[in-house]
């Protein structure tokens, strides 16, 4: 009888199904059985979802569904290993994806969170104007942001002297333009909600401005991390803006998302599915870490 909170990693049943999946997934190509790409894509996605939930939340591992998911990740594991070993540029592309996404998320966080907290605490004047501008930026399509950054950074444009078009830093700039309003908007919303809730109580208890701010930030920390997670989600999935500003130059500005686009243009679908799986794993790992961090901020 499985106990709640039992350490899932040691459970033999799910691991058994995982191993079974690896065996089946490894043997089928060897005996010449070709599995449809769509099936592989679905299995990979299901398996990755399973892995993430397993790692983040812990799961009771006797359920049939869980075993099926373990099988699916085992099934695609040989394919994933083969894919990584045979794709020349995979490390470079993955590293650049991580760099551009991570840097732009961190820069956007550094800009948007302090600003959002200040706005939420009504520390800054012109609330309504700022809010209207913010909602306009919310509606800024990322591809349009990419186009505007392209025109800015092009040598024919005002910031052309920087020479940042078709470079990784240019891609970071484009993503910062896209992600900052998102983090800013959610942070402002969360902080002002908490502020409204806490203000009266804090006043009654004799808190001054600084202590009120500290209290609000403590209560809103989880919400701010949600904002960062949403911003990261936007950053890792961005394709239009980074394609336009980065130019998808081999060895220089190729990331996972833009390579999926060009793979489809060249009908290299298996390669594209593999890259998509890597995207899922990267995103999943970061989300898992952020979830853990968020749990520590909850009272």
């Amino acid at each position, binding site marked *: 009888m499985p106990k709640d909170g039992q350490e899932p990693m040691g459970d033999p049943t799910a691991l058994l199904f995982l191993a079974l999946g690896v065996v089946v997934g490894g043997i089928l190509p060897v005996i010449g059985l070709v599995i449809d790409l769509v099936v592989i894509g679905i299995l990979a996605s299901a398996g990755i979802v399973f892995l993430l939930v397993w790692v983040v939340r812990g799961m009771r591992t006797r359920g049939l569904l869980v075993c099926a998911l373990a099988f699916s990740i085992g099934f695609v594991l040989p394919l994933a290993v083969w894919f990584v070993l045979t794709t020349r540029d995979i490390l470079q592309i993955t590293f650049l994806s991580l760099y551009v996404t991570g840097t732009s998320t961190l820069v956007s966080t550094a800009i948007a969170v302090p600003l959002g907290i200040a706005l939420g605490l009504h520390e800054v004047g012109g609330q309504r104007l700022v809010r209207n501008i913010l909602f306009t930026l919310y509606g800024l399509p990322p591809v349009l942001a990419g186009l505007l950054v392209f025109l800015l950074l092009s040598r024919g444009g005002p910031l052309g002297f920087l020479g940042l078009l078709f470079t990784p830093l240019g891609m970071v700039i484009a993503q910062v333009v896209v992600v900052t309003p998102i983090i800013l908007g959610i942070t402002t919303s969360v902080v002002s909600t908490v502020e409204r809730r806490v203000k009266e109580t804090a006043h009654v*208890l004799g*808190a001054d401005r600084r202590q009120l701010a500290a209290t609000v930030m403590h209560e809103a920390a989880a919400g701010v991390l949600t904002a960062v997670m949403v911003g990261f989600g936007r950053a890792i999935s961005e394709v239009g803006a980074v394609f336009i500003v980065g130019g998808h130059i*081999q060895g220089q500005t190729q990331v996972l998302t833009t390579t999926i686009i060009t793979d489809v243009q060249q*009908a290299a679908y298996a390669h594209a599915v593999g890259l998509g799986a890597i995207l899922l794993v990267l995103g999943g790992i970061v989300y898992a870490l952020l979830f853990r961090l968020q749990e520590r901020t909850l009272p």
Partner: protein
Amino acid sequence: MARPVRAMHFAASRRYVAVLLAAVVVLVVVGAYLSGVGRGRGYLLMATTTSTRDTGLLPYLLPKFTGDTGIEVRYVAVGTGQALDAGRRGDVDFVMVHAPGLEDQFMADGQGRCRNLIMYNRFVIVGPAGDPAGITRSISGADGFLRIYQNASLFESRADNSGTHNKELGLWAAAGLDPASFGPWYEKTNQGMGNTLTIANEKAAYTLSDDGTWYARESTLPYLRLLFSRDEDVLRNQYSVIPVEPNLHPGVLFNEAVAFAQWLVSPRGQGLIGDFTVGGHMIFTPNGVQAC
């Protein structure tokens, strides 16, 4: 009543903020280094078309140039219009395109220093395996287009102002037809050759392609066949390399671009181009003319 408990959290969040800012600074500096800020580009940058990329010629040719000269070459593969525009903006050092009409305009505007012909391949008509319009019996490209029109067969036009698109319009004109009058069988994809071929395959439609992209993609297009191919002058797809005019854009690596153009038209470059095959087919016929 407010207590140190709150202050402790404030301090903890200060630590996070410090780490965050430090990480941001480090990452941006790394990015600036990777992007060659202040150093200038360490490599030659070319704007070319998706068709050129799709033939697979560049990964074959560029490393050999780097091996011979030590100059690294990278490229952005975009539509013909954007490739030439990148040249006009000075975002690239030279362009490799195959749209003679647009290239003439580019040179007339003084945007390029010298136009070097390097090679040509051939425009071909591909279509559904059953060939409902019967174009395999055509006597010319224009005649094939006429048959497609008469049969009102589904046709995919790239409609992206590329060299291929302009050639397609020229063939309709040669057949005495005006695409503005065509019915719904004439579809416009506004995309590159690769995507247009994929669409034509899905819809079992005719389209005009260059044989380089066709042979590179053939195995992924099971519902299409190469139906008409002939060595006519009008079906020639001429490639040129044009270094961007340095007087307009002082930052471009003009000497390196000229070195690349000269290498391409030299016996070494022309020999490599002639040796390049896709699926056993020799795609490009070298016809280099040095202009730089």
